[in-house]
């Protein structure tokens, strides 16, 4: 219990620090005033404008104002759309999450078995092919692969739609999801494969595997119970963080496939200097990250009994 509370507290600290960084970065390093005013405004109008936005107040006041508003859920209005920035982000979050989870599932379902096979028979030609393939997987630039996927499957073959998103959990929705999910999954798939292979190789050399064989257990049990459970711990930890990475990296895939998620909104906002939306995106993403890290830590403790006891003693 204490362990959970301690981790939550740590996470809150991280969120606060990041909010400070984001705030300082966006409002200090950039120059919000310069962006907003048009050339025709008189000095008096500019002054009134600045006052209205509170930009003439000292910095720490602005920050506290920002925090207070943020706690209320008010992160400002988008310059471009006029609507509350937070609402814009949250509207698009489901699309991004759908994409990220689909890619995550793909990466795990393909990556772990491939990696385990490569780890159990490290000298076989299939295993070497898998490893070289994994290097190809994380060398491929995601955006370029996306383009090629569209080219082949949508333009040349016409099997799948090239852009946009269908309704959730419908056949049409899945058809639209297929290419973007594969695109986003590729990089992570390669990483998961390598991770699973490394873990399996290390586990397979351990004495407890030899002992399991000495007990006369069937090879499938040895692999699926003894080895898998041991590699789950490091793999889960990394995978959890990778989920966060997927959500962030979906920016690229969303742009290529015109997938209506948060990432695409972010890029548009950066280009159009729509600061409130950028800030809202960053705040939400950082929050998501911290939550994911927290969940991963707790999962780690649940999966590895040694961690639980260590924390309990501490």
């Amino acid at each position, binding site marked *: 219990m204490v362990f959970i509370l301690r981790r939550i507290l740590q996470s809150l600290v991280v969120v606060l620090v990041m909010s400070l960084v984001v705030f300082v970065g966006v409002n200090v390093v950039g120059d919000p005033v310069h962006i907003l005013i048009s050339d025709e405004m008189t000095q008096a109008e500019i002054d009134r404008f600045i006052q209205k936005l509170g930009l003439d107040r000292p910095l720490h006041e602005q920050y506290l104002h920002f925090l207070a508003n943020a706690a209320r859920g008010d992160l400002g209005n988008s310059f471009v759309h006029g609507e509350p920035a937070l609402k814009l982000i949250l509207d698009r979050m489901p699309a991004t999450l759908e994409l990220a989870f689909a890619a995550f599932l793909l990466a795990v379902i393909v990556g772990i078995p491939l990696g385990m096979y490569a780890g159990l028979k490290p000298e076989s030609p299939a295993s070497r092919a898998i490893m070289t393939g994994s290097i190809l997987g994380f060398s491929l630039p995601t955006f370029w692969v996306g383009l090629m996927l569209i080219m082949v499957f949508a333009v040349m073959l016409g099997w799948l739609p090239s852009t946009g998103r269908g309704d959730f959990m419908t056949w049409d929705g899945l058809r639209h999801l297929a290419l973007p999910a594969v695109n986003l999954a590729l990089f992570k798939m390669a990483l998961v494969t390598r991770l699973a292979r490394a873990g399996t190789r290390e586990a397979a050399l351990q004495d407890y595997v030899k002992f399991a064989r000495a*007990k006369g257990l069937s090879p499938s049990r040895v692999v699926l119970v003894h080895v898998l459970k041991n590699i789950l711990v490091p793999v889960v930890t990394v995978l959890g963080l990778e989920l966060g990475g997927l959500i962030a990296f979906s920016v690229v895939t969303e742009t290529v496939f015109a997938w209506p998620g948060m990432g695409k909104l972010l890029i548009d906002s950066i280009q159009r200097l729509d600061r409130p939306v950028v800030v809202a995106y960053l705040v939400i993403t950082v929050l998501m990250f911290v939550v994911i890290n927290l969940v991963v830590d707790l999962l780690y403790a649940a999966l590895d009994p040694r961690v639980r006891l260590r924390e309990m003693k501490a």
Partner: protein
Amino acid sequence: MSDKTLVVEDLRTHFFTRSGVVRAVDGVSFEVKPGEVLGLVGESGCGKTVTGFSILGLVDPPGRVVGGRVLLDGKDLLRLEEKELRRIRGAQVAMVFQDPMMTLNPVLRIDTQMVEAVRAHQEVDNEEAFQLAKAALQRVGIASPEERLRSYPHQFSGGMRQRVAIAIAMLNRPRLIIADEPTTALDVTIQAQILYEAQKLCRESGTALIWITHDLSVVAGLADRICVMYAGRIVESGAVDEVLDTPLHPYTQGLIGSVPSRNRRGSPLAQIPGIMPALADLPPGCAFRARCSRAAAACTEIPELRKIGNRQVRCFHPL
């Protein structure tokens, strides 16, 4: 043949590494009778652990058994198919490893690891297997076995873990247990307890026991017969009292002499000069030649294992 549990004939296991062939086991032969405790003694690196693994077919690449026979009730284990060998492992022949923290899977509970050992060989359901496991733990002297079964390996002390390992070995009532330095990692008092209990168990159930160790004092109290290994070969074997009181091989004599209690106070400890040759680079002839005070021209040939009474020795000039 049928009165011996295990007969090992001229076992050879070589490791084919990039730097050459390592002859870890190079012509090892011995026998064990039911209920008998055989001590397999030798320095680190003499090949005794590999001998144990070879019997059960657990030698990993680049190692391979290249010759000999291992007869369990007349069946040659080395010629068996993997599936049949698996039926024997953990059932008729069980093994106890040196470091129980490594041999028990740290992320699985004890009951999981014991129940799976039972169910791999017996047609019982989980509940029955659990009861068998509980009984086995009681037999090795672990109190409150139910609680212990639900724990994880790291919650046990070293001695307890080793008792669990022995319990696992006994689960399917094996004809033979191979124990590879099981008490080396424990302290002396626990060691004594475990030795005593192991001996008792074997006498009661008629299980043969091969106890692999480098520690002569352990063997002295525990074993009925002893085989001394050096550089992959057996150099002497016989009844433990006879061998330890009147060793025939110069190496055995050296080993006995270097045990601190056998030395006089105030005088330097007796040592065998030199070191054991690397198994990848064995000199021709008798492997002990370079360190032997009795070496002669004849020792450039590998001596055969000769019978002297009901003992055996591999030497041209036995003591």
